[in-house]
């Protein structure tokens, strides 16, 4: 296990492209961290910085409090697993796994014990003598993992390791991978573009955008307490309402959206400011206007007109044009008994705790989020 610390790390390529900007974070011993973000957010650059194939332009990286700038890739105790398996096709599983200890000049007995332990860990003992061509994709990935274990690496860098696997196998492999990392007490850094993979496999997830660390936190933190508009956008599904803060004094802030006042989480943005209010699609409650006359359960709501009630299998998605002409979408369970017709007027109930305000981006929401 190794604790890793990035301290104000910046990487500039060709003197102009700032791939990673002033990055500071700590990865604890034995932690499983995922890096997510759109393409070009700096994920791969960060992995290369970990590995030492590139050095920071500014700032420092520490492994267990030891500065890494003069430590070569071989001496960093790092193992890699890539999307494409990078195992030697002319070697058996056993030979692939034995490669690193052999190159390091270990004794025959040491090599044997390392390889056997590694193959046992990834459950490949029965395939030790087979060549990659006769194995399946998940077994190639297991071979790659066994190779890392046999090299005695303490840090595991994973670059889209499940990207080439089919969905179903992928989910099984996520569980396998996390269990392996925990059992072997490795520190793991996993790059993926698949947010649900990151959320289900990691202790913490780092959200990156344009080379900056937007937020790092547990999966539940990111889902329920996003502290940046980009996290709200990138993790889960949200729409962003255009509003103005009217009252910022209580636990819940009052905001005006079009002609209506609603309550939302107070994010300490002063009254009078224009805000983007992130509403999670699965927390919106859509109801027919007549239905709840007797009992006004929904008092925190907006009014709108249904554009489409779309069947999506697990869910239905109801697209609604609000009074202020903004379009939002609510996700409701497929078993929800009420169906909505096109052009039907509806109430859209907003759960104040799950609606979060952010300063309205100057360049507009879609440019700020580069949708």
């Amino acid at each position, binding site marked *: 296990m190794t604790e890793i610390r990035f301290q104000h790390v910046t990487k500039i390529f060709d003197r102009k492209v700032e791939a990673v900007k002033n990055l500071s974070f700590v990865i604890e011993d034995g932690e499983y961290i995922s890096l997510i973000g759109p*393409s070009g957010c700096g994920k791969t650059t960060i992995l290369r910085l970990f590995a030492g194939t590139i050095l920071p332009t500014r700032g420092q990286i520490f492994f267990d409090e030891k500065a890494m700038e003069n430590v070569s890739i071989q001496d960093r105790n790092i193992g890699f697993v890539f999307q494409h398996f990078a195992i030697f096709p002319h070697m058996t599983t056993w030979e692939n796994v034995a490669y690193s200890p052999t190159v390091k000049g270990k004794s025959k007995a040491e090599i044997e014990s390392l390889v056997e332990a590694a193959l046992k860990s990834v459950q490949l003992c029965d395939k030790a003598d087979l060549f990659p061509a006769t194995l399946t994709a998940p077994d190639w990935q297991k071979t790659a993992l066994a190779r890392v274990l046999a090299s005695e690496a303490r840090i595991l860098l994973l670059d889209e390791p499940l990207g080439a696997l089919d969905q179903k196998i992928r989910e099984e492999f996520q569980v396998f991978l996390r269990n392996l990392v925990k059992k072997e007490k490795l520190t793991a850094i996993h790059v993926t573009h698949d947010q649900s993979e990151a959320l289900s496999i990691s202790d913490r997830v780092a959200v990156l955008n344009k080379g900056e660390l937007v937020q790092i936190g547990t999966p539940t933190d990111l889902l329920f307490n996003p502290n940046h508009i980009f996290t709200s956008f990138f993790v889960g599904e949200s729409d962003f309402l255009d509003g103005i803060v009217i009252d910022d004094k209580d636990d819940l802030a009052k905001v005006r959206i079009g002609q209506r006042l609603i309550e939302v989480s107070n994010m300490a943005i002063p009254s009078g400011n224009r805000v983007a209010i992130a509403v999670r699609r699965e927390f919106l409650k859509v109801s027919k206007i007549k239905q709840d006359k007797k009992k006004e359960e929904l008092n925190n709501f907006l009014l709108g007109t249904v554009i489409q009630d779309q069947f999506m299998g697990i869910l239905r998605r109801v697209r609604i044009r609000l009074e202020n002409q903004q379009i939002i979408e609510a996700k409701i369970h497929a078993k929800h008994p009420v169906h909505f017709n096109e052009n039907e007027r509806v109430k859209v109930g907003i759960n104040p705790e799950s609606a979060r305000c952010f300063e309205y981006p100057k360049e507009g929401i879609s440019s700020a989020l580069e949708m």
Partner: protein
Amino acid sequence: MVKVELKKVSKFYDKIRGVEDINLTIKDGEYLAVLGPTGAGKTSTMYLIAGLLSPTDGSILFDGEDVTSLPAEDRDVGFVFEEYNLFPRMTVESNVLFGPIVKDLDLNESKQIARELFSLLNISGKENNFPDEVSGGQKQRVALARAIVANAKLLVMDDPLRALDAKIREILQIELRNLVKELGLTCIHATHDTHESFRVADRIAVFKDGKVEQIGTPEEVYNNPKSLYVARFLGETTTIDGVIQTLNRKKFLVTEEGARIEIVTDLKDGSEVVALAPAELLDIFPVSEKSKLNYDNIHEATIIDSKCIGEFYEINLSYLNTSVKAKELIGKAVDYKENSQVLVATDKGDFRIFPKKRRRKK
């Protein structure tokens, strides 16, 4: 707009089957998704419709007219590929106007159409950028504008969003459907992503091994899958084996251990069946709520583990001695603690019942 018909269309590459005996009608202005795994014949079908391939057998009709031997450039089909295939040394606008120029259409009018498309596709302002100066999502929007600008009536797309990040893919799915509907195009969109097909399409054709396995609205194929293959492809399911039994005029599936689940089926008593339980239709409640529930089936189950994946909790349960997966939207007040007992409630219509195939001996 154009109506497209494929009649007994087959395409073989030497002896390898691309598609075989495809009969398919795509209505005027319809958005059809062609769904299937790699190798199911999706790309062959797209290429055949666009005229980039000729069928080995069968005919293709546009508005009742046989176009089987009509070359691609005379079919008025706009084609969008997974790769954007933009000309790297031309600006966004020149890329889009390439077709109209080659076809010798009125340039001013084409420019006007291009401007409208740029605005519909949210890429106004990028006209003078080169392809490598815009994002992946924007590149695919340019490719889309290029496909449509020269009066295409039919839009054929082969997994157009595959190379994009999940987030952009979602946004473009909505944009695509809106665009197609706004312009009144007929559209055929191949994808391997079930969610995407639900999102964009009026109807879905599920392909298997070069043939159409089932075609229908998203609701039809999801609720009434014709085969285990379709059911498995469309949703996350676990299977429960059992035998059909009638009791008090109600049909039940009886598992090996003797547990009974009420189901809907026409199969006779004693038939060996496989029941598919879609993860999202298994409703989970605390044991204390048993008396309040109004379901056809209520069984106790033990939670093996659970995890939060975005808007869902994914819960693995030991249910009737089978390990099953359930999905619950977040926001429901149930504690999914490991090893705790819960209730799994289902209605008789929630299970998809298929006769069990006897395993062939190898």
